[in-house]
């Protein structure tokens, strides 16, 4: 494969962010739950240290995504819902025309929003808990909030942390699926092949290196080649 056939999917800062986030979340889950499971060690400092790393990474991502990238590529559009419905029909054996997605499938977008919500809850509650920890910057104050309020914060932190386990299990599973390895590779090396791009994405909805586009309304007429580029047709052969 010639290097010119490579399509950039994830730039280096975004890949670094992803893997820093992954490492910090693994450290947080390990330090948070291994003591619960009976593996005792001095986990508190590592836990809040990894939490600060995660917080910084997430703030970087939010700023970069909102300012330098295309937030619209992660928004759920009606076209995504229509495509998902067609994909469900196709999965159930019905004849269906499944439109090719932009950069991300509906499920990928929904996963992003779910993990974002869960991590923001853990980060927010975790930062509040930092008040109860002695750090080089402040002395702990466990009376800053009342017992009842601390209890609610602990519950939210615990539920969100456990929910992140579910989401991460599913994420790693799909990342290791044979038909998804091309995506996993792109989060390591940054690119996909031209064939993968043309086969799996609608060029009208995702132009690598350009701005993502809101899906257009159904065009009045288009030639067969355009339609083939935009749709995966599942049909019975004559």
């Amino acid at each position, binding site marked *: 494969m010639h290097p010119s056939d490579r399509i950039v999917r994830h730039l280096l800062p975004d890949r670094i962010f992803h893997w820093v986030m992954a490492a910090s979340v693994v450290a947080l889950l390990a330090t948070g739950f291994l003591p619960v499971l009976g593996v005792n060690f001095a986990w508190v400092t590592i836990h809040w240290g990894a939490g600060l790393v995660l917080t910084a990474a997430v703030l970087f991502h939010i700023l970069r995504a909102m300012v330098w990238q295309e937030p619209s590529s992660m928004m759920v559009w009606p076209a995504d819902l229509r495509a998902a419905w067609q994909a469900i029909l196709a*999965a*159930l054996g019905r*004849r269906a025309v499944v439109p090719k997605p932009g950069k991300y499938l509906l499920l990928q977008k929904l996963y992003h929003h779910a993990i974002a919500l869960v991590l923001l809850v853990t980060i927010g509650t975790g930062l509040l808990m930092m008040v109860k920890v002695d750090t080089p910057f402040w002395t702990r104050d466990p009376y800053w909030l009342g*017992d009842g309020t601390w209890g609610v914060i602990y519950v939210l932190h615990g539920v969100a942390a*456990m929910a992140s*386990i579910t989401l991460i*299990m*599913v994420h790693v599973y799909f990342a290791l*699926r044979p038909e998804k390895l091309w995506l996993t590779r792109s989060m390591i090396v940054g690119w996909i092949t031209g064939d993968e791009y043309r086969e799996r994405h609608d060029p009208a909805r995702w132009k690598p290196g350009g701005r993502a586009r809101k899906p257009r309304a159904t065009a009045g007429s288009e030639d067969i080649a355009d339609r083939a580029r935009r749709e995966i047709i599942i049909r*019975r052969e004559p």
Partner: protein
Amino acid sequence: MELLRTSQNAWGQEVLLGVSFDLLWLFVAAGGVVILGHALFKALWEPAIRRRLDGGRQR
């Protein structure tokens, strides 16, 4: 199975400590169900659907 962990403070009032760690296995099981369900679908159901749609021929 309890959902929450509680205790009593110095004044005998019940205070919330956090979510029950018994729920951890519920969340792990939920992930396992999704993974197993999808794996079974891809391994067993989808090939049968493709064969039916393609009339037995490779697409």
